[in-house]
């Protein structure tokens, strides 16, 4: 029973936790594409800033993943 509940909790933790960052990264990338389309000369500057912002958003997904791993393996 406990092992089964652990699996359910693990799945829920990472499943729900990845919704927000997924949407966030999509929004970031779409705005960056728009900006590059409007101003192709600044493409590399925009790309650097975009990667930085995407990493911040992805960190939240990684927190959810770490919680899921802790539930299962600790």
């Amino acid at each position, binding site marked *: 029973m406990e*092992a089964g509940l652990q699996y359910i909790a693990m799945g829920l933790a990472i499943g729900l936790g990845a919704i927000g960052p997924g949407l966030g990264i999509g929004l970031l990338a779409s705005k960056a594409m728009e900006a590059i389309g409007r101003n192709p000369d600044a493409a590399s500057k925009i790309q*650097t800033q975009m*990667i*930085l912002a995407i*990493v*911040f958003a*992805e*960190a939240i997904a*990684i*927190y959810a*993943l*770490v919680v899921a*791993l*802790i539930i299962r*393996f*600790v």
Partner: protein
Amino acid sequence: MNISLAPEVLFHLGSLGITNAVFSSFVIFIILVLFVFILNRKLSYDKPGKLQLMVEMIFDGLYGLVQNVMELKYAKGVMSFVLTFFVLILLSNWFGLMPFVPAISLEEKESTVTETSSTEKLSEAESTNHTDESIEKESFLKCLASQHCYLSTDGIKEFKKTVHVFRAPSSDLSFALTIAIISVIVTNILGFAYAGKGHLSKFINFSGPIPFFVGILEIVSEIGKLISFSFRLFGNIFAGEILLVVITSISFGLATLPFLLLEIFVGAIQAFVFFMLTSVFIGLAVTRHEH
């Protein structure tokens, strides 16, 4: 599958346990020193070799990024500091993908269920009024169900615990937390050293109730930086390790190749991101804000 959050201890130096992650970081240190020796033997100003050109290309790219966020007089010193982080984290991440890492392992001695699950038996005897036989049966069944034991002609035996000798250092939360602490502390020290009062007034500001609370929020966000640095690196690399173990166990042949490529990419990105974020935060701390 042999996955554990905490790295396993290989041997003890006095009372200090050397884990496989720490041992791997020693090996990485030796690799780095050898690399620098090989690079230094053929340094040339007008006829650079291929290795020197490649290193200079990477160095110039990263140096340009650091110079974008702070002035040149700071960038020179800061570059040596953050470049160390970059090289260290890059090698630590990629070390976990080396082919010999899961292959070399030590095995603990085999043991039967009755010896090891004696603590389980005691706790069950306290809680319920079962006989000795049924307690043994329950612990056997629990052990078999969680796949820690297997049936053999000599009775129920536990699987031998295998301990890998090597493990990516950045898959150890201690390593990630250590470099995160160093990064945040050095950022603040540099801020105090070069911007003095300006840096302090970011945190402790008595010129009104709102700036005071903003200062307190800034202190909290420093701790948030600590946690986010360490968990970003640890989570990416540890989850990558688990991903590779799981994919390898459920498929065969070249099916793990795309995941290995993904892990190589993720390892490089995480090193670059740590480098970039540290230099950005140092740039923010060191720049004097003149109103």
